[in-house]
């Protein structure tokens, strides 16, 4: 993210810490008034990935938290990078989202330029180079998995730019719970159904044992043949059934004043978009 304020001047090398003084002043001013600066929302997540006989399976929970309140009960943490490569993101929600979108764009362009389908190792290298450049200020921990011409690969990339290449990986606040399931039951070259169950169980361990993770299990199965994105593969935690009725009759909210302004408009086009209220 380069500063565009002085486009005609040559960019200075290295990192720009111009805003740190301003931020320190702002923090001081806000705390005097009793406010605190807005915190970046973290996903507080469990993400996991394994390599099995035919490819890789990525799994994630679907809870996004704002401190210790659930902000989104069903968010998507498995992001598209390329037709054969997907990426799970943990850490700061905005960072994971934007980083994966940038990778998707870069990898798409690179693949057009080389004339070849993208490699998983390309995504990992570009990710780690970018994250290292930002010295950990971009708080996204990612698990990249996919199947390319060289085979099935799984990498984890940390916010400061280090990466690991392993047959099974977990990240996020629920990583401890999930890795314990993998360490117990992982074997190389597992069959599809057994592998799906293993990832589902690992994410479920994070959902139940980690407060930052919850709601549903999303899976993404990537093989040579194609990708199966299983959104809402399992819903281990059920919402309780309410016993009472909480409907309000029209007129319950007091109307203090009413002004009617008729607008002379014609209906040109009508379309309906359903809200996801589940």
């Amino acid at each position: 993210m380069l500063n565009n304020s002085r486009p005609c001047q040559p960019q200075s090398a290295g990192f720009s810490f111009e805003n740190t003084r301003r931020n320190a002043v702002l923090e001081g001013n806000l705390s005097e008034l009793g406010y605190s600066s807005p915190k970046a929302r973290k996903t507080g997540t469990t993400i996991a990935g394994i390599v099995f006989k035919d490819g890789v399976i990525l799994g994630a929970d679907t809870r996004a938290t704002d401190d210790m309140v659930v902000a989104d009960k069903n968010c998507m943490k498995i992001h598209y990078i390329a037709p054969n490569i997907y990426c799970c993101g943990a850490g700061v929600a905005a960072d994971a989202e934007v980083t994966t979108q940038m990778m998707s764009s870069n990898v798409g362009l690179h693949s057009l330029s080389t004339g070849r389908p993208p490699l998983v190792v390309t995504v990992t290298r570009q990710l780690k180079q970018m994250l290292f450049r930002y010295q950990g200020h971009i708080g996204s921990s990612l698990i990249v998995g996919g199947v390319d011409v060289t085979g099935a690969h799984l990498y984890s990339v940390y916010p400061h730019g280090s990466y690991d290449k392993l047959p099974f990986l977990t990240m996020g606040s629920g990583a401890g719970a999930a890795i314990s399931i993998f360490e117990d039951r992982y074997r190389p070259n597992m069959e599809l159904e057994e592998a799906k169950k293993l990832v589902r169980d690992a994410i479920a361990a994070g959902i139940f044992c980690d407060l930052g993770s919850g709601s549903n299990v999303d899976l993404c199965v990537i093989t040579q043949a194609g990708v199966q994105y299983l959104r809402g593969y399992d819903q281990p935690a059920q919402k309780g059934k309410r016993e009472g009725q909480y409907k309000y009759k029209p007129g319950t909210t007091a109307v203090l004043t009413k002004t009617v302004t008729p607008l002379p408009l014609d209906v040109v086009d009508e379309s309906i978009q359903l809200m996801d209220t589940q």
Partner: protein
Amino acid sequence: MFTQVYGDNGKMKEYHYTGPVEHRFSPYSFNGGTVLAVAGEDFAIVASDTRLSEGYSIHSRDSPKCYKLTNTTVIGCSGFHGDCLTLTKIIDARLKMYKHSNNKSMTSGAIAATLSTILYGRRFFPYYVYNIIGGLDEEGKGAVYSFDPVGSYQRGTYKAGGSASAMLQPLLDNQIGFKNMEGVQHLPLNQEKAVQLVKDVFISAAERDVYTGDALRICIVTKEGIKEETVPLRKD
């Protein structure tokens, strides 16, 4: 590194940004949990979830926060579990002392007043506990006393305390206090409706508060005695 800005009185203010800050030992920790008490005409309900957590982990899924004090009074304590345990032990001791000196059990109002004194006694190293007492008063009517960590209390009809209190309290204000509603009959709360409301309200709290969940323990106090009911909640 530091930066200077002109303050209100025209003198320069100094801001110091020292980078990573060393944290001292904190004697408190937050163990989560939500408590709720509702008073009716001839009953009182004290309910709490049973999850005990710390940080992102769960210590126990079966640690209720309602404690029976007398046949007519139940207290709900949430916050720092260490202080909750000690405080309930101290209250139990004071109940025994009162019974031995005065030859009768403490009334709900008396317990509330005593608790206020106990809490203020630690004004400068407080018990990190959010208390709510629910019980029957001398006339047999339901009573709810809600406290802050240093002993300020008042009697009311309903109160939510603990981690999800900010989510529950407005809903109770609407459904029990009939606030922000026009043209609605102010029906007195009966026991079945109150229990149903408590269950529904905790189901909603468990959806959005990570510290609330696992199970709900409801203690219903009537002149017949104290009845306990346990209802499962989301475990994630």
